[in-house]
């Protein structure tokens, strides 16, 4: 009994304390260093913050270069996939175009009327200048659904700014470095935004799932009766302007659950728009 305990201690000691022939540090020393690094960074220690920012700038750019071959494969995979669906997509687009043309005539009038009414109720928001950024890294992590963009604090990007793909909402800025930033996508488990479900007019919270769809939380599911509903930001909380298109309600065929299919395809992001909204000052 005593001998087997001794063997265990010797094996552990040898594994963690002994330096190999070409090793500069023992395992225990590096483990301690990692723990210290973790603790200091969670306490927002200044020196560690600078190391973090410097390291991230280098790693993001290196990762962008390293993943070029994979991006090439990915791009071609999507091109081939698109070619297979070309005919059906074209037919669908023709029908949609006819429908949208008729709708567009009404839109201009409604937008102007809405702007005028919001001015009256003191709820009109003006957006900052758009900052266009290139997505340099879109690695899906098991813990975070995020992308890295090539604009940072140097280009006046700040925490909490919203990120859009065309007119569709994509996410918000959660980390800002000097020349790069991280965007938390709407599909991330940690993402929660206030939304409104139209045409029902139900206020709710859209939560990410870690997959390529979202879910509607804190609302009675029986209120949503059809799959025709679209989801827009509600503007509650003041971070997002009301009315930014987010996605469409769809029913999952497997478990019959109502999910949210995002308008923007997050796996295909190349360029995004970063902006913020501020309330207009009426004198």
């Amino acid at each position, binding site marked *: 009994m005593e001998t087997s305990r001794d063997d265990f201690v010797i094996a552990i000691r040898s*594994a963690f304390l002994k330096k190999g022939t070409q090793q500069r540090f023992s395992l225990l020393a*590096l*483990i301690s260093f990692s723990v210290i690094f973790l603790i200091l960074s969670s306490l927002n220690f200044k020196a560690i913050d600078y190391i973090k920012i410097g*390291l991230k700038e280098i790693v993001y750019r290196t*990762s962008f270069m390293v993943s070029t071959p994979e991006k090439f494969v990915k791009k071609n995979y999507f091109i081939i996939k698109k070619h297979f669906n070309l005919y059906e997509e074209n037919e669908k687009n023709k029908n949609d175009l006819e429908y949208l043309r008729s709708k567009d005539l009404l839109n201009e009038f409604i937008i102007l009327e809405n702007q005028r009414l919001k001015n009256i109720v003191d709820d009109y928001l003006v957006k900052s200048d758009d900052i266009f950024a290139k997505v340099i890294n879109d*690695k899906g992590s098991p813990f975070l659904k995020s992308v890295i963009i090539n604009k940072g604090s140097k280009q006046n990007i700040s925490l909490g700014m919203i990120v859009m793909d065309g007119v569709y909402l994509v996410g918000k800025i959660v980390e800002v470095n000097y020349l790069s930033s991280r965007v938390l996508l709407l599909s991330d*488990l940690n993402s929660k935004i206030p939304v409104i479900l139209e045409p029902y007019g139900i206020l709710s919270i859209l939560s990410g799932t870690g997959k390529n769809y979202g879910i509607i939380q804190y609302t009675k599911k029986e209120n949503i009766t059809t799959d025709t509903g679209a989801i827009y930001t509600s503007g509650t909380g003041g971070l997002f302007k009301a009315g930014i298109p987010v996605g469409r309600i769809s029913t999952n065929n497997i478990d019959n659950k109502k999910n949210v299919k995002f308008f923007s395809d997050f796996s295909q992001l190349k360029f995004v728009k970063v902006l913020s909204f501020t309330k207009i000052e009426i004198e």
Partner: protein
Amino acid sequence: MTELRNKNFIKKILSLVPLFLLYLSVLNNFDFNYLELKYFSFNFSYILIFYYSLKKNVSLGYTHIFIAGLFNDAVIGTPLGISSLIYLLLCGSAAYLRNITLRPSLIKDSIFFLVAILIVNSILFITLNIVFNYVLDYSDQIINITYTFLLYFIFSYIFNLFENLALGRTNVE
């Protein structure tokens, strides 16, 4: 003489392949998300680190593994230092297994690997969830662990083949 020098040079380059793969895997963060495979993901870095720490511990080096962990954290957005800690714990478990094993076998190695990744991933999830308030999808993690374990057999065979054929090392078993 020149031929011998060339051979040594090629061998030296080939011996850096595991290190190159390690940095490539953390910087590129191999995923097959674009294939939209719902139930498939694995952690190549775990397999690589465990295998080389167990069989050929000079190939990677603890310092490189530590740096690779920092790179991985920067790429995937987890708190800096956590992947290094996990990778080094995995190295520690591999080194422990190496010390206690007299007659190595793939089955024993893989079972130990499964236990090791279950423990280190538990540490990772507890830290992320409790200390850093990350919300995690546990079913995804279970799928990841299962495939990492299953693919250990295949990658172990490939790495063995590489060590035997390219580097002529027969003592990797």
